[in-house]
């Protein structure tokens, strides 16, 4: 077929990998919970090595109010509407987990200086949909769905907010939440008519911080849900049990024909793999089990706490972060049943393996990651969530977070921290802030889905 086109994104994952190198990064930075009475903001970071401002924050867009706790974000459009010439990857939808406000940010008119286009107030979302605590944003063709982790009072399971392409609230996306107890992340694979969603906890449970005892009281998730995507209702639940405590980031293969996907179980520090077998039944298995590590000051060994996973655009490598241990791992998942550890780097963490990197004291551990479309550059930030940061890495209040870049060998496997790239959020103009999720203007490895 001749290359049709027009709309945002790319015709295929293979084409996405040929895209020009990312020159700008958009990264969340927060002051919520830090003691600095300033709004959270979106940073634009120069990632062009030829530029005099390489590895620096070149602009900052403050949100209108304080206390949002910006966290994850997503584009208004991706490769899922590549055929639609009326669509453009122009706006980032940047939710506040605590405030429920949705900030719509124009990143295309002046990519180096994004501007606030519109705010959908949390009060309006709660009043019209009885939902709060927005998390994952995915576009869906020309529409947008956002996982909302609570009802308007912060109780689980919440549901899914549905917006049209003009950012008007349509209402709830799902027809039923079935027996689902909690929400968190989701990803869809339309050729298999499936969406998979994972479980964190009720906002009223996780927002104040982490009480370990609440896991035993079933206040945190341990199930994975397979949805009938067209019917917008859950169809099957996988009980992961002790192997799947707090399943967070959900990633399907980018290949739209594949049924394989993965989730990182944060507290169990396992990678769970699922796929559809030849009989058409969904199966799951544990494929990576990160051992807990002893620590002289801890009464029990420290769990890795896998806070994020990500797949390269060619679906060959899986990356994971052990936020408490301090390492990022690269696994070759060419055979998704048999991952092979091919790379590992250390930054921060509680094990003390790399307290300082590129001249910056790393407070926190590797947390959110974003990979370039060609798979060669992995950008890493160190803050998880303000209250949880305050519990595990209290020095982050004065040191702030940081961003590093890891060079990934896509031929032989392997990773190395780039010695020339570091953004120290401890030196921000208004005081130390904490950096979280990153996206690239041209799309990235956690934005684009092919229908």
């Amino acid at each position: 077929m001749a290359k049709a086109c027009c709309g945002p994104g790319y015709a295929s994952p293979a084409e996405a990998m040929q895209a020009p190198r990312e020159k700008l990064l958009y990264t969340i930075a927060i002051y919520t919970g830090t003691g600095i009475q300033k709004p959270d903001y979106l940073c634009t970071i120069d990632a062009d090595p030829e530029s005099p401002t390489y590895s620096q924050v070149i602009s900052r867009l403050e949100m209108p109010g304080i206390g949002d706790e910006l966290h994850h974000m997503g584009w208004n459009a991706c490769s899922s509407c590549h055929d639609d010439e009326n669509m453009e990857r122009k706006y980032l939808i940047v939710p506040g987990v605590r405030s429920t406000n949705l900030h719509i940010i124009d990143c295309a008119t002046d990519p180096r200086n994004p501007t606030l286009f519109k705010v959908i107030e949390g009060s309006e979302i709660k009043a019209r949909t009885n939902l709060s605590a927005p998390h994952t944003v995915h576009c869906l063709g020309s529409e947008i769905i956002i996982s909302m982790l609570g009802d308007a009072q912060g109780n689980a399971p919440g549901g899914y907010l549905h917006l049209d392409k003009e950012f008007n609230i349509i209402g709830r996306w799902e027809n039923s939440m079935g027996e689902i107890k909690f929400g968190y992340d989701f990803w869809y694979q339309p050729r298999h008519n499936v969406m998979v969603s994972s479980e964190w906890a009720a906002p009223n449970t996780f927002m104040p911080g982490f009480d370990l005892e609440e896991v035993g009281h079933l206040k945190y998730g341990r199930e994975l849900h397979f949805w009938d995507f067209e019917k917008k209702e859950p169809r099957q639940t996988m009980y992961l049990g002790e192997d799947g405590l707090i399943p967070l980031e959900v990633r399907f293969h980018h290949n739209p024909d594949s049924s394989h996907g993965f989730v990182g179980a944060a507290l169990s520090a396992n990678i769970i793999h699922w796929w559809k077998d030849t009989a058409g039944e969904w199966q799951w298995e544990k494929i990576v089990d990160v051992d807990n590590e002893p620590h002289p000051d801890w009464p029990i060994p420290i769990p890795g706490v896998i806070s994020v996973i990500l797949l390269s655009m060619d679906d060959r490598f899986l990356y994971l972060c052990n936020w408490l241990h301090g390492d990022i791992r690269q696994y070759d998942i060419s055979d998704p049943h048999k991952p092979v550890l091919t790379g590992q780097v250390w930054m921060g963490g509680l094990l003390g393996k790399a307290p300082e990197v590129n001249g910056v004291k790393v407070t926190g551990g590797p947390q959110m990651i974003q990979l370039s479309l060609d798979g060669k550059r992995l950008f890493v930030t160190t803050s998880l969530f303000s209250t949880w940061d305050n519990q595990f890495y209290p020095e982050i209040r004065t040191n702030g977070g940081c961003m590093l870049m890891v060079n990934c060998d896509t031929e032989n496997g392997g990773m190395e921290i780039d010695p020339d790239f570091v953004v120290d959020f401890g030196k921000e103009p208004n005081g130390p802030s904490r950096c979280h999720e990153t996206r690239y203007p041209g799309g990235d490895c956690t934005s684009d889905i092919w229908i």
Partner: protein
Amino acid sequence: MTKVTVTLANRQDQTFEVDPRKTLLASLSEQGVDLPYGCKYGGCITCAARLMSGSVNQSAQVALNNRQISDGYIILCVARPLSDCCLEIGVDSHGKLYRNPFLDPLADHELKADIAAPTKENT
């Protein structure tokens, strides 16, 4: 209705006359006190402050565990004063609010109210 006096111990003992029908976050913010906040419904602890003396009604809060409550923490976005109060506010009052959950576990009676075991005095 009679106003009550709120003293901010870690803000040079500044005092404010507040309407007890309003939340402390609303009353103090209106009078120019720069306070952190997040959810504004009592579900997150961004606005937590420490009650040094006096009493409040914070029955709408769902964020604090019983350890935090016994350490004097209150949630300003839902707490209404029942008497004159003395508070420590802001993140500089949060010293005992956060603890490493692995190093310093909670006893059964220190969990959040909906799952806490009754204390011996209550049984």
